[in-house]
């Protein structure tokens, strides 16, 4: 395996990790505030559909993005209504949201486009285009010229022009969201209160801060981030919406969140790791490690297996926010 192949795999790792990362950070905000969110999958799916549908109809990816985020936030508010206002079961609400997204997207897609539950393929301005960082084109040309000259290039320059440059805007946004999330959660008053509401809502309430408002804020932030994740899936990674296109990514993001022990920087690495597994699984049918053939199905199951291992506490302990999953009942 030469350097260029490795760089190509890493390049697709970054692409595949992006929706995971955005959804994972969405889960981070929600769960740190004490609202468990297994509806990440559903929110990504509605966002994917509406961003693709609106982008296809208007030809503008920005309008698509706005529509996707709006749809995702709407679903987030349903989750908030059920789990914060009506103190329902957050897990059941998440399950309902996933089904609602899975059914509604196909229903509306069929009604609007009649193409068997998909949107038309997106082209041109209806997709996010790849951003070429300064100097990347020149380096790539240089690389091609060395091949043309008959010299085998080292491929080191490809780290810049292939791996770092040439992604769509949302990839860079996703990566930038990691330090932003860290800063908001751990260096601002809002973040302190948000984390407190996930550990001990009673104390926050006693301090005169509204638990309900904080939790709604967290749920809406999760909605926006899931919206970005879904929009990236349909308008960046793929060119349009197909039925159930999230394909369990919301659950892998949830797994990454646990794997990262509810921390932003760890989340980045967990998502990159799971993205790498997917990228390797996409490229090779089976992999030989020390003479033992590892089937792709094992690679696909690995994120889930790793999460179970982490959850079981055999390798480091993942301790969730203490008030997670419990509706807050104000004392009278």
């Amino acid at each position, binding site marked *: 395996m030469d350097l260029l192949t490795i760089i190509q795999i890493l390049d697709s790792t970054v692409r595949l990790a992006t929706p995971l990362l955005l959804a994972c950070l969405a889960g981070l905000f929600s769960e740190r505030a004490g609202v468990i969110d*297994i509806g990440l999958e559903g929110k990504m799916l509605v966002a994917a559909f509406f961003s693709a549908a609106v982008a296809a109809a208007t030809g503008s990816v920005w309008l698509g993005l706005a529509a996707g985020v709006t749809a995702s936030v709407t679903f987030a508010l*349903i989750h908030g*209504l*059920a*789990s914060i206002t*009506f*103190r*329902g*079961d*957050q*897990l*059941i*609400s998440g*399950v*309902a*949201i*996933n*089904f*609602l997204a*899975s*059914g*509604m997207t*196909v*229903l*509306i897609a*069929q*009604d609007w486009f*009649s193409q068997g*539950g998909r949107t038309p393929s997106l082209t041109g301005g209806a997709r996010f285009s790849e951003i070429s960082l300064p100097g990347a084109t020149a380096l790539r040309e240089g690389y091609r010229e060395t091949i043309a000259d008959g010299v085998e290039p080292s491929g080191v320059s490809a780290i810049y022009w292939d791996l770092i440059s040439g992604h769509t805007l949302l990839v860079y946004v996703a990566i930038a969201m990691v330090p932003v999330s860290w800063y908001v959660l751990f260096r601002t008053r809002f973040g302190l209160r948000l984390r407190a509401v996930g550990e001990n809502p009673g104390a926050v309430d006693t301090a005169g801060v509204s638990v309900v408002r904080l939790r709604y804020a967290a749920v809406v932030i999760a909605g926006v981030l899931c919206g970005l994740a879904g929009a990236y899936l349909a308008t960046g990674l793929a060119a349009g919406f197909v039925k159930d296109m999230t394909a*369990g990514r919301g*659950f892998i993001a*949830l*797994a990454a969140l*646990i794997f990262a022990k509810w921390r932003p920087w760890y989340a980045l690495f967990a998502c990159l790791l799971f993205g790498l597994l997917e990228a390797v699984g996409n490229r090779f049918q089976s992999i030989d490690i020390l003479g033992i053939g590892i*089937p792709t*199905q*094992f690679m*696909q*199951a690995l994120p*889930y*297996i790793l*999460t*179970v291992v982490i*959850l*079981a*506490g055999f390798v480091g302990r993942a301790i*969730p926010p203490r008030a997670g999953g419990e509706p807050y009942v104000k004392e009278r």
Partner: protein
Amino acid sequence: MDKLPKWADVALIPLINLLLALLVSGLVVLLIGEDPVEALQIMVRGAVGSTYGWGYTLFYATNFIFTGLAVAVAFHARLFNIGGEGQAQLGALGVALVVLWVPWPHWTLALPAAVLGGALFGAAWAAIPAYLQARRGSHIVITTIMFNFIASALLVYLLVGALKVPGSMAPETARFPETTFLPTARDIFAAMGISFGRTPLNISFVLGLAACWATWLLIWRTRLGYEIRAFGQSESAAVYAGISPFRIIMLAMLISGGLAGMMAINAVMGEQQRLLQDNVLGAGFVGIAVALMGRSHPLGVLLAAILFGALYQGGAELEFETSVPREMVVVIQALVILFTGALDGMVRRPLSRMFLRFGRRRPAPAAGGE
């Protein structure tokens, strides 16, 4: 807190929730430009208007009885087993192995063995998350979700490798031998001289009814059932009464997984007659809706399962006759879960207040609280 009379809790609230879900579904149908009344008529006619419709309705219902009971038993111990899908897949593997490996002379011999195989494999798949919850405190919802994905990867691995028919391209096992085919409703009714449509409804439906009855016995007539309910009501009180949480979590989840695994008797042995990659078709998740609607009572689960069976069959007819795709059923299912599960408080709270107000006027304490 219990301010509602029992009949309101078990009948009125689920009914209101269901009506709300159907109302919103009707709005959705209206929004995509179809007539909701006509859609409902097509669904009802398709589901229960003929022996053919009934056959499919009850066939789907049999799947949902098993997965619904699985979720319900776990609910009684306040465990949310979201892994019915994976447990049913493993159950299917168990059933397929039993049926394919032993040359059964007759289905009457194969059936008990297959029930055992399905239940054991399903229970085994629930055992690991149960153990991790009981001993290591890992959240059972998350682990069972993860186990769903692991199960489907495992099944794909086996079906493209060890279990595939040599020389065949399709990722499925060999067809089950004909001696193990379960008698269908058509055969049984034909023997009685009644003509019944050609449907996959088979003897497993009777097994499903038996499972409902056995679950009722277990939960309300045995010591273990009492312990499960006590544990579900209050873990600390149960521990004080000498009930071991480890034992209850393990047993409740094993029974739950076993019930989910038995679904394969109907779906795999009864209909598909070979092991396919996707043999559960979401029934594991429908079980959640069924258990919620049925208030975790076996009779409620039975009724809810038949309702959902009718919904699935009616949805198929709807797709056939109009432009409304089959996914309409998924939307209805989601709304039922949302209204009966998550938004329950929306109906319950005002209703309790109403009962409290009108209950007080009577001299006898109509409300059963203290």
